[in-house]
């Protein structure tokens, strides 16, 4: 492997910037509206005084447009971002967010379209939904698709509620009431049990084997009780390993009368290579903000489409978008509310539409061959890191990883440098740290997902940085323990923040009095 003489990042220009409330000066103005052009009534004649607020919007800032620009531009420079460099957060798929997709989402005919406009006046918007549904069905091998869920966890809730509705419809009341257990591996995302709970299920945890796979024996044992409604499984799992027994796993659950839900957070390892529908999965959610590159925006918005088998399709949220002929015989798109078995609506209107535009643009930009190429490149990058770092870090599972790989701090922690310290030190080398301390079943986990959006020089730099930190952890642990050294602020006292939470700014006098 080529060594690239990595140098540590030095700190560079950074401005101090207060909270906007501290910048505010009475009388500053950042806007201008056209003057009121209708006859003005005394406000009290429109809205009785007892319904009006009387605090003159106390505390709301008064700043100029320049203040706003400088404020946000300055604080923006305190963020790390994909455009700056590799962002290898495992399970988060931080890939390039194309500017073209941003342009598409801002086309006036989409951006200015009201969701309650008539169907016939919104045909282009409906076509986008219809086509994206169609493509996601092909990619997952699951024909029923709803784009309504707003994020991954929302898609999970939708999928699990669909399982529940299906079982309630299939079994007699007494029998379905006994099927209220959702099986979830101990390596799962926390959203899985939380979503299962929202759908009225109790959770039983399945053990993972020492090789990092679902424990089939334990699964069989849990399935033998007759109370299992389903299994929520991530594949590749959160250790980055493909569940090679997936068909058998689905068979065991199906034989026990349950259904299989797949958490699609890791679909970036599979697009164009293998399809959940072909594995026996009944329902899945996708994260358009991971696999299909819609920007994560510092915490959202996402979009969590739910894809399912033909059998489960009647239970999807309403409205569905379908292709139909009008009375005049013209083909068009319409909303279908006539789904008596539907779990209901999970969000007002139709979902995070702007994300659907971006995802469709992603699929069209890549084409079928580009989608497969992206998957291959993502898995190759992860495998390259796995291969390179095994000499310096403990890799707890032998199997070849897919799009992400887990290492631990086992070797470094002997000298006192733990995963958190390694992560913080990585910041000094100019990289965003990987996902840390997840999955929970691996002590000191570092879950690294490079995605396809990293070239080999940057991968080599990352590898060199990780090796350099491994050396520092032995030779100069203090350096690692006190990292980061190059950022505006050091490690924050999170315990003090949680003990006496300050969750909003208050004017000085008020803050003192409180």
């Amino acid at each position: 492997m080529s060594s690239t003489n990595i140098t540590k990042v030095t700190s560079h220009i950074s401005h101090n910037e207060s909270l906007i409330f501290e910048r505010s000066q009475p009388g500053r103005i950042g806007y201008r509206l056209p003057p009121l052009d209708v006859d003005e009534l005394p406000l009290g004649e429109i809205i009785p005084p007892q319904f009006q607020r009387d605090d003159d919007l106390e505390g709301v800032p008064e700043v100029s447009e320049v203040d706003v620009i400088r404020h946000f531009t300055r604080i923006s420079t305190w963020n790390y971002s994909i455009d700056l460099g590799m962002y290898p957060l495992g399970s988060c798929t931080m890939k390039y967010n194309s500017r073209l997709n941003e342009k598409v989402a801002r086309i006036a005919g989409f951006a200015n379209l009201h969701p309650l406009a008539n169907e016939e006046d919104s045909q282009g918007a409906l076509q986008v939904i219809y086509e994206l549904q169609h493509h996601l069905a092909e990619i997952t091998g699951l024909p029923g698709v709803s784009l309504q869920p707003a994020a991954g966890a929302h898609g999970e809730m939708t999928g699990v509620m669909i399982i529940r509705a299906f079982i309630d419809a299939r079994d007699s009341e007494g029998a379905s009431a006994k099927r209220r257990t959702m099986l979830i591996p101990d390596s799962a995302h926390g959203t899985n049990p939380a979503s299962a709970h929202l759908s009225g299920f109790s959770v039983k945890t399945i053990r993972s084997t020492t090789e990092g796979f679902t424990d089939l024996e334990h699964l069989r044992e849990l399935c033998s009780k007759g109370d299992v409604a389903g299994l929520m499984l991530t594949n590749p799992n959160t250790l980055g390993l493909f569940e090679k027994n997936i068909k058998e796993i689905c068979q065991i659950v199906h034989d026990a009368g349950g259904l299989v839900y797949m958490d699609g957070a890791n679909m970036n390892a599979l697009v164009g290579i293998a399809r959940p529908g072909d594995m026996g999965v009944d329902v899945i959610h996708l994260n358009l903000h991971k696999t299909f590159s819609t920007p994560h925006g510092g915490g959202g918005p996402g979009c969590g489409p739910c894809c399912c088998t033909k059998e489960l399709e009647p239970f999807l949220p309403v409205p569905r978008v379908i292709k139909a002929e009008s009375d005049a015989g013209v083909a068009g798109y319409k909303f279908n509310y006539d789904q008596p078995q539907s779990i209901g609506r999970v969000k007002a209107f139709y979902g995070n539409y702007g994300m659907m535009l971006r995802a469709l643009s992603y699929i069209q930009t890549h084409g079928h061959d580009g989608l497969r190429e992206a998957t291959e490149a993502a898995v190759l990058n992860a495998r390259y890191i796995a291969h390179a770092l095994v000499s310096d870090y403990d890799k707890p599972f032998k199997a070849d990883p897919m799009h992400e790989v887990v290492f631990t701090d086992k070797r470094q922690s002997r000298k006192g440098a733990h995963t958190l310290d390694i992560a913080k030190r990585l910041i000094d080398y100019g990289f965003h740290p990987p996902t840390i301390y997840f999955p929970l079943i691996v002590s000191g986990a570092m879950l690294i997902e490079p995605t396809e959006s990293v070239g080999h020089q940057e991968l080599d730099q990352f590898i060199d940085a990780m090796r350099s930190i491994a050396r520092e952890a032995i030779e100069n642990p203090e350096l690692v323990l006190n990292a980061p050294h190059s950022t505006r602020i050091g490690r924050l006292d999170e315990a003090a923040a949680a003990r006496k939470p300050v969750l909003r700014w208050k004017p000085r006098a008020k803050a003192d009095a409180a």
Partner: protein
Amino acid sequence: MRYIPNSSAERAEMLKQIGLDSAAELFRSIPEELLLQRQLDTPAALSEIELLAGFERMAARNSAAYRSSFLGAGVYEHYIPTIVDHLISRSEFFTAYTPYQPEISQGTLQVIFEFQTLVCQLTGMEVANASMYDGSTALAEAVLMAERVTRRSKVIACGAVHPEYLEVVRTYVQHAGIDFEHLDFDPATGQATTELGSALDDKTAAIVVQSPNFFGCIEDVTALAEKAHAVGALLIVAVTEAASLALLKTPGAAGADIVIAEGQSFGVPLSFGGPYVGLFATREKYARQIPGRLVGEAFDKQGRRGFVLTLATREQHIRREKATSNICTNEGLIALAATIYLETMGKRGLQEVAQQCAQKAAYAARCISQLEGFSLPFSAPRFNEFVVRSPVPAGELLKGLAAKHKINGGLALSRYFKDRPNDFLVCVTELNSRAEIDTLIEALATR
């Protein structure tokens, strides 16, 4: 593929370095029978030029997007300062993840802290979270929270709450053991009745009211808060037109315990229904029951101020099935847009927007009510929306306005209320000029 840095030659070299001969070997851990043995049946790759032309063609078929519009009903067209889109397009904001590493996420964290503060100031509440998906899911989460706080299982929604919000709440609570009731509005005033009678009892966890309500009527929130508190229940106030918060008595001052709002009015384009942003605020004593993320102030060893995600033990990644919600990804970037909007408009701008909305809507309502055959069925005071009763079925009337006058004249209420064929909901904002309003009036007069 131009988004993939490594060329195929580079990838071949990397494969060789890790001891593989081909990309196909990367997938050896997948059983062969599961490998897709064909190409995906999705479109072939398009160039930027072809792709944009295709989307422009589809966009052109959205004729409603190119008309002057009086559509509201939970989604509002307001002025959006140019700098909002410019600033949210900075890659430091839009290509960052959830701020898990505070040392390199202070930009996002400070934005959220300002957002939480602004939400508190606007709603008159004490704590607010970092955002929910939208107003409808925020209301559902508020109902679930009321059950947790009170350990009671009945929730009563009063009057004209947005019908799609009610549907979402019903979906969310269907397996939560919550008895969700809905009491109809007073057909004369359009408001919720404050005489709740036997529906309200000591099993009631919360009363839900929307103000301004779905018909634009301002509700007597204070009276409902007193009713709720008298039996130990919470009052949940829903706001779909957040611009009203700058003018109307705050839900907090009126006695609300939880306030949720749709924040779309704050600098967010219509975008056919999303992404928007849900606002969620409550009393300080309930901070540990709040769903979603919270950002708090913190200090480093040198005493420098920063911000961190805090009280995380409420959340799914720690408390799993016992979490206060399953939410993880929220609406960060849209919360940023709302923050930039609120700070740019500032105190005076928000007040002026709200006043112009109220004045223009009052003008439009006054003129329409004087038209032959048209009337306003509800008597309650309103903010920027009102219901009009037409002499003919509203759906046909509005289609005619679109075809002949290129106006989206409002929402036919028959979409949600089958027994109101002639009623439609008109929304007027600061963006509707007097000329547009007069064109609407003229079009109705000469239908």
